[in-house]
């Protein structure tokens, strides 16, 4: 765990260097474009966190092993942090470039809906006491939300068709400079390491919480 933390710290500093010093400034958007190197990777990490959460939830439903529940809850909570970074950096970038903080474009709307789903999941967990029912309920909710998120994105694309094309893989004229790719992937690697680091810490916390809860129950039933 200590090695992981140290490696993550070094990677984060390196990522900051890559994004703010090393990579050249983008021509048309200027300095603000550098937000991109954290904006986009944090969404990728949030997506990874959801898939980990989904896989762990299915794992729990199949096995009833509470360790899967710990993993799911931790991954989704850490994912919320990265999704929040993504949502908060977006408007900072959009204001100087598009002239507005927010637009109800399918990508943005879906990201916001996703964020609300994360919040709903965590609030549901807070409202439930018994570990078994809580784990089952939140696992089922995760499966519903993961399927729902895909349909939300599809329907939003239908709703507003004038959305901007994706920068990467969006057809002719899109794509990134080689140096920008390096900075992007560097930041992505650093944020992924940070995710794993936080995930481990959060899982430990969840396990300790469950143990203290168990002890409290035993104590309560004895008195």
């Amino acid at each position, binding site marked *: 765990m200590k090695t992981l933390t140290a490696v993550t710290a070094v990677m984060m500093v390196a990522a900051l260097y890559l994004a703010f010093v090393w990579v050249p400034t983008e021509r048309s958007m200027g300095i603000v474009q550098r937000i991109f190197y954290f904006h986009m990777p944090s969404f990728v990490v949030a997506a990874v966190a959801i898939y980990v959460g989904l896989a762990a939830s299915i794992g729990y439903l199949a096995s009833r092993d509470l360790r899967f529940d710990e993993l799911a809850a931790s991954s989704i909570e850490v994912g919320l942090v990265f999704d929040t970074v993504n949502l908060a950096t977006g408007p900072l970038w959009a204001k100087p470039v598009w002239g507005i903080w927010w637009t109800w474009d399918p990508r943005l709307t879906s990201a916001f809906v996703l964020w609300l789903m994360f919040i709903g999941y965590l609030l*549901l967990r807070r*409202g439930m006491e*018994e570990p078994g029912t809580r784990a*089952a*309920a939140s696992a089922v*909710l995760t499966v519903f939300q993961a399927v729902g998120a895909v*349909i939300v994105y599809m329907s939003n694309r239908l*709703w507003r068709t004038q959305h901007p094309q994706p920068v990467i893989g969006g057809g002719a004229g899109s794509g990134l400079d080689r140096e920008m790719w390096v900075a992007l992937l560097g930041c992505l690697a650093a944020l992924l390491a940070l995710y794993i680091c936080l995930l481990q810490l959060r899982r430990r916390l969840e396990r300790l919480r469950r143990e203290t809860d168990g002890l409290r129950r035993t104590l309560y039933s004895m008195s």
Partner: protein
Amino acid sequence: MGFLRATLAIALKDLRIERRSREVLNVAFSFALVVLLLFSFTFDPSGEETRAMSGGLLWLVFSFAGTLALNRSFARETANQCLDALVSAPVSGAAVFLGKALANALLLLALELACLPVFGIFYNVRWSVSFGWLLLVMALGTWGFTVVGTVFSALTVNVALREIMLPLLVFPITVPALMASVQLTTVLFTGEPIAAEMVWLRLLFGFDLIFTLLGLALVEYVLVG
């Protein structure tokens, strides 16, 4: 008892309770009227643009009033440990879920049909032009909303602040169904041809199908825990 008979028995039980107590319909309909009143302050109700917004308004009313009904669906069973009895009854959890979803959907449809004329009068909307299509859209939209809502109603039955948790969980995930219903309803109200909007009808149908199957497959975990 066969699956379908059990489903029907549960649905009829819920509808019978509602017929005798009227605990949902009275409150939800009055609430819908209050929401209709509030909308009149947010924009000029006599303006031309009202018709372009009418689908959205109507479905907001439906979904706000609908959550009231969904909240009661499983909460009603907490008295006298009825839920435990339902779960331990020799019927599958899927039948309990489907029966309750059916009852909820019928209840909501009745509520929506009662709201339509009032909406037409207050906001000068001609809703009866293509009533057959409208009925289909309402049925599909309501089913999508209820099927997710019924699973989540079971999910939140023992949660603190249940009444707030349910809409918080249901609305984000039902965004596609609401969007499709709003789009189709607006088109029907404005009298434009529906043929150009078939993609929304397909989306609505797909949404209903996916979440009905998901609910049937997973509800057992929710009920038994």
